[in-house]
């Protein structure tokens, strides 16, 4: 498994994601992760999250999807803020924060996929995952929450 380096997220952004998961409970929420990937230093920093609307109206309790338009909107948002789209987050209502088979079949490498486990309306664990190069499985990334005084520029 390739070494995925470290990934960190600002405390405010993490809180925003958690709230998004709680607002949409019992349905899945989703959004984009914006930030910088300093590949040479093996460091990935999520600086902002961009909440989006789950397009799956037929099965939102256990499925989410974002259209190509949503993806382009996220990319445009990233560009205006001088950032990149590093990946996506979504929630699993009343389910562990582990990627499912369905997640794996629809994933691309390089992206960080953050999953929130929202239990009975309260966000519990938040974990980040990257797809293996051969698509066979995910490797978990060590997600660090940055407190305000730790922001690296």
């Amino acid at each position, binding site marked *: 498994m390739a070494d995925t380096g470290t990934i960190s997220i600002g405390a405010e952004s993490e809180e925003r994601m958690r709230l998004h998961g709680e607002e949409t409970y*019992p349905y*899945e929420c*989703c959004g984009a992760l914006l930030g910088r990937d300093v590949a040479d230093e093996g460091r990935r920093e999520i600086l902002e999250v961009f909440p989006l609307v789950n397009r*799956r109206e037929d*099965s939102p*309790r*256990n*499925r*989410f*999807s*974002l*259209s*190509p338009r*949503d*993806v*382009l909107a996220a990319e445009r948002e990233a560009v205006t803020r001088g950032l*990149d*789209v590093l990946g*996506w987050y*979504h929630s*699993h*209502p*009343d*389910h*562990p924060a*582990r*990627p*499912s*088979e*369905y*997640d794996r079949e*629809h*994933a*691309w*490498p*390089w*992206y960080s*996929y953050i999953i929130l486990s929202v239990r009975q309306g309260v966000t519990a664990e938040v974990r980040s995952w990257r797809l293996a*190069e*051969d*698509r*066979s*499985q995910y490797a978990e990334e060590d997600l660090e929450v940055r407190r305000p005084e730790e922001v690296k520029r």
Partner: protein
Amino acid sequence: MSVKVMIPTPLRVHAEGKAAAEFPAKTVAEALGHLTAEFRDLKQHLFTKEGKLRSFVNVYLNGEDIRYLEQENTATKDGDTINIIPSIAGGAPVAVAPEKLTNEEILRYSRHLIMPEVGMEGQLKLKKAKVLLIGTGGLGAPLGLYLAAAGVGQLGLVDFDVVDFTNLQRQVTFGSSDVGKPKSQAARARLANLNPDIAVEAFETKLTSENALELFRDFDIIVDGTDNFPTRYLVNDACVLLGKPNVYGSIFRFEGQATIFGMPDGPCYRCLYPEPPPPGLVPSCAEGGVLGVLPGIVGSIQAMETIKLILGAGRNLKGRLLVFDALEMGFREFKLRKNPACPMCGEHRTIHELIDYYEFCGVRGEEAPAPDLQVPEITPRELKARLDKGDDLFILDVREPHEYQICNLEGHLIPLGELPRRVHELDSSREIVAHCRSGKRSAEAIDFLRKAGFRKIHNLKGGILAWSDEVDPSLPKY
């Protein structure tokens, strides 16, 4: 005719970091064909194994989705731009409390549905069921396959081991190409292929007292397909503490056993075996051998019992120990009663948490090691050196005749069990080197000879396996 293909950020790592590439092409298919030919690693992320564009990959020609044009046959011309944009999709493993079957599921399980004993109601019970398989080896193979085929909605596979070449004799979920892969992952892939409608989760982890309770909590039924005593006791205790049924199966050479422990008014494993056997007494498959199809039969019986539990059908093996003799092709049954004084499931429980099972079974470390005998040893290289020098050494082979036929060092064969009776065949004035397959039995032989007064004795360390590794690789290993 040059067409520009924009490469999305996540895939640039497979395209030498490029953001775009240009190719001569008359259609979108041709352009993408050139792209994946030049950057081979891109292919699997854009196309399925069957060569179709993955459902979440959207291709645009000059801003228009090719689905609304001629799909991959859309014609391209000089200066066109192709964009590849993913849809992002995902979700939790299984529908929350599935209330109905899809049309596809109805077709898949039609052979279940037409039986009144199962029907739609039964199939939905299977869909809602969550079963955890401990072990994905000889027993786990048919278990996983049949439970997946039957439509058990959520399956968990616990195994921290890696597929070994010797497994293929009986662990039929794996293929030759899986050797070296983690078992739980390889099994998950096989089961997901058999039935993509269910959720199969692989837990590539060792089951321990620290994680068992948490792991078991998410499942309704636990199926014990393991091969060692500490884990058997661990699974049992965790099931009784959590109140979950434990569908048990075990095998040894030509005999198999199956029953269900952990039911509310039924016995548990400790009722049957309050004490574990002394370490080293009961051999593993590697030591004792097993006919490959035997776990196939016992594992299938476990799958059957699991399905019956879920459906609430028939009479299950609670309180009944089914013993299967493959050579005689006979089944016998023994009544198993709950032991009222059982420390785990009896009236006055004294065990309230998971313990150190390795200590309980008198074992330290990963597997039950043979009793530690202090015997004089000689390594294969040392033995070879001495034989080459012309030393007069007597090689004593204490294996069984059928092992001698596989490979041998032309030693004098006296199977270990016959040694006491045939010790007179040995000359105590000669230097004797005893060997077996791995060095365990021969250590016992040397210990016996020393107690019988022999002084010039050595145990071949590592046995004929080590000889094959270190001296003569042409000797087959088994």
